């Protein structure tokens, strides 16, 4: 056992999630994972935006950058580039990361910094009272769309794979034990790691319930080779696979950039300024 225990990440902030919300399981997963990886509260940064999912770091003790809705992936990259020693983990909603922040997400996959992005995919806008999110299914009836969603859902895993993302996994929030392993692998992966975390929103999404997720997911076979992109796309055909789905070997970008917490020296300055003779 390492230095840290789950209780080292405990916080006294009152939790404002609905009782029974899938987010609780994710919170436990995160604490356990950090403890098992021996990453202290001051060594990790949890970077979030606005929504229900993004409240997560307030409910634990950890460096927290709780920025703007949908901008978590952008800010996380800034943090990582400024200080590659920090373990940077993003927690966001499907609305924030795939909707408002879709472009940050897309280009972050390309940039391939060594960060982990966990999307709490409840297929709904939770905090703002149940509007459709990019992953809402066709036909889902919501307060704002009484006739049901008419736009095809985003396919986040396929998107990440199409851009040869370094690491792609899917998890179901209730499976804490398995999820600790998945999240560990994601954090340990050197590069951009996506964990699409299926999460029931018991208040607004009456279709994708705990039962629905149980019925519509399956665990990826231990034989599955995540480096085989064709096999991976096959996996995604019908039900929702859980586990590490896809991996791609490529060098992480942050290993190439300098630490950025320094002042330029007089020497360097004078060298440059002198070149304007």
């Amino acid at each position, binding site marked *: 056992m390492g230095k840290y225990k789950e209780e080292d990440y405990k*916080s006294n902030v009152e939790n404002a999630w609905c009782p029974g919300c899938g987010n609780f399981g994710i919170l436990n997963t995160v604490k356990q994972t950090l403890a098992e990886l021996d990453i202290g509260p*001051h060594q990790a940064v949890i970077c979030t935006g606005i929504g229900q999912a993004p409240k997560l770091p307030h409910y634990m003790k950890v460096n927290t*950058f*709780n920025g703007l809705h949908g901008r978590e992936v952008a800010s996380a990259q800034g943090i990582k580039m400024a200080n590659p020693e920090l373990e940077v983990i993003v927690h966001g909603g499907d609305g924030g990361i795939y909707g408002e922040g879709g472009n940050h997400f897309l280009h972050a996959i390309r940039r391939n910094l060594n960060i982990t992005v966990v999307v709490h995919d409840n297929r709904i806008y939770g905090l703002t009272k149940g509007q459709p999110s990019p992953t809402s299914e066709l036909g889902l009836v919501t307060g704002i769309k009484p006739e049901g969603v008419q736009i095809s859902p985003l396919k986040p895993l396929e998107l990440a794979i199409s851009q040869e993302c370094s690491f792609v996994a899917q998890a179901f929030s209730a499976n804490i034990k398995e999820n600790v392993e998945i999240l560990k692998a994601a954090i340990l992966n050197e590069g951009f790691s996506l964990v699409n975390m299926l999460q029931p929103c018991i208040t607004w999404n009456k279709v994708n319930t705990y039962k629905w997720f149980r019925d519509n997911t399956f665990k990826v076979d231990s034989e599955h080779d995540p480096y085989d992109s064709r096999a991976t796309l096959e996996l995604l055909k019908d039900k929702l696979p859980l586990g590490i789905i896809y991996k791609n070997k490529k060098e992480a970008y942050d290993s190439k950039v300098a630490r950025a917490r320094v002042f330029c020296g007089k020497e360097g300055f004078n060298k*440059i300024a002198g070149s304007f*003779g």
Partner: protein
Amino acid sequence: MELNIRLSGAAGQGIQTANDILGKLATRSGYFCYSFNDAESRIRGGINFNHMRVSTLPVSAPRERVDILIALSSPGLESNLSKLVDNGVLISGVKTETAGKSTFELGSLDITNKKVYGLAAVAVVSSILNIALPDLEKIIKEQFKGKESILDINLDAARQAYSMAQSWTEGAALSLNPPKESLQQGKWLSGGDAFALGAAAGGVSFVAAYPMSPATSIMTNLSHWSKELEVHVEQAESEVTAINMVAGASYAGARALTSTSGGGFALMTEGISLTGMIETPLVVAIAQRPGPATGLPTRTAQGDLRFAIHGGHGFFPRVVLAPKNINDNFTITSEAFDLAEKYQIPVIVLTDQLLQDSKQSLKNFDFDSISQKRYQLSREELEKLDVYQRYRFTDDGVSPLAYPGQSSHPVVVDSDEHDQDGHLTESAEISKKMAEKRHRKLKTILQSCKKPESWNLKPGIPLVLTWGSTWGVVNEVQKRLEKQGIEFAHVNLSWMWPLPADFFRKELEQASKTIIIEHSVGSEFESLMREVTLHDFDHAVRKMDGRPFGVEDIEVELKELL
């Protein structure tokens, strides 16, 4: 004494390079030079010019007068010929029958590749200025280092043109001796260069930005210098990404910068408000150009003053600064980093296309004159604390700063209203106290507020008020009119925000007349001064076409109004 040399031609004909060689050369030879450019938003063709003032006194403003017109294209010739003074000369790269102007035909040289015409013209000017050929040759060799394949044809063109010009009496008649007192080892650099150097001296260690004229040179420069300066420059996929990246980087301890123009800043206002809330230091460069929307991408304006002050939702303290000239682009930018960290606020530096793209002969910048102070708690101070509260209530509103990983204390920042620990709160009481804490910083910041600079300030005479780069023309016109016996006081603001109430009110009321000049279609500066001083200005001068104010324009205008 000065020569005004205008190089005109199409984009892609190399007038920028020629202008640069001339500027460096004349600076080394002891002249004070200043150039500004007028370019279309295209890569090839069109009608562009660079206007170079070679002077025996420091100059830093655009002029209309042309003594030597270098024309590399027919449209360039046609559109500028009317500016050429009566005894001026023409150096032409195109066939022309301009009766009455003495002309140096580049076509009469034994040169087949017209790409070197620009350089040949520079050689002609060198000859007029009595600059020795070896000095010219040296600079050409420097310029084409690494491009040896084209060095020879350039050298050859320069030599030919120089020797032919030696016997061109009309040209020689314009000759100008360098001043006795000149810059020692003067530098030739642009506002964009000075801005990047100011950021470097201010300790910038992380830049995220998206290219946008006329701000791009800042990120380009810093990217080129990244090894020497230990700065990381990230080209973001959009300005929204850039601002949120720098906010993150700043939280992680970097001195962070983003640079853009008004349109990019528009996309950043959400993030500016974020940094206001989380109290993360940040420097934002807005290089202004005429709007609205895409507007005139390669032209100049001062139209974003109010937007810089008010951009972003909700109240939070910020500082807005505006360099008046290229030298200020260095000093003010470096100060911006100090202010940002000292008060944990966003600091916006408002430069503009005129400042960014103009070049000038300047003294070397002094690194030691810039504060290298950092404001975070030390690791030792932090470890002594039982708890670290990112937003501790303090008298001056400034809470102790620390970054994550620096000590065993987690650092919590939150875009929601939060308590002292950084956790979100719904409490009316804490919300009120935290809003008050941020508001208190305003007063604290005002301690750093500088009085505006003034020239010939005294009661009873007219007062001309300017801000930022418009300083240049008015400063020069003041001296010109003084010689004509016309006197006025000139006041220029560089510290734009926040301003204490009644700021400069007395001085305005004591003036016999007040005139405000701003390079804007709207009246942003006037409205700001009205708000702060409650003063009613007698006259306002504005600009609608995106071209810089010229010395001649302002001289005429002020003579009328004074």
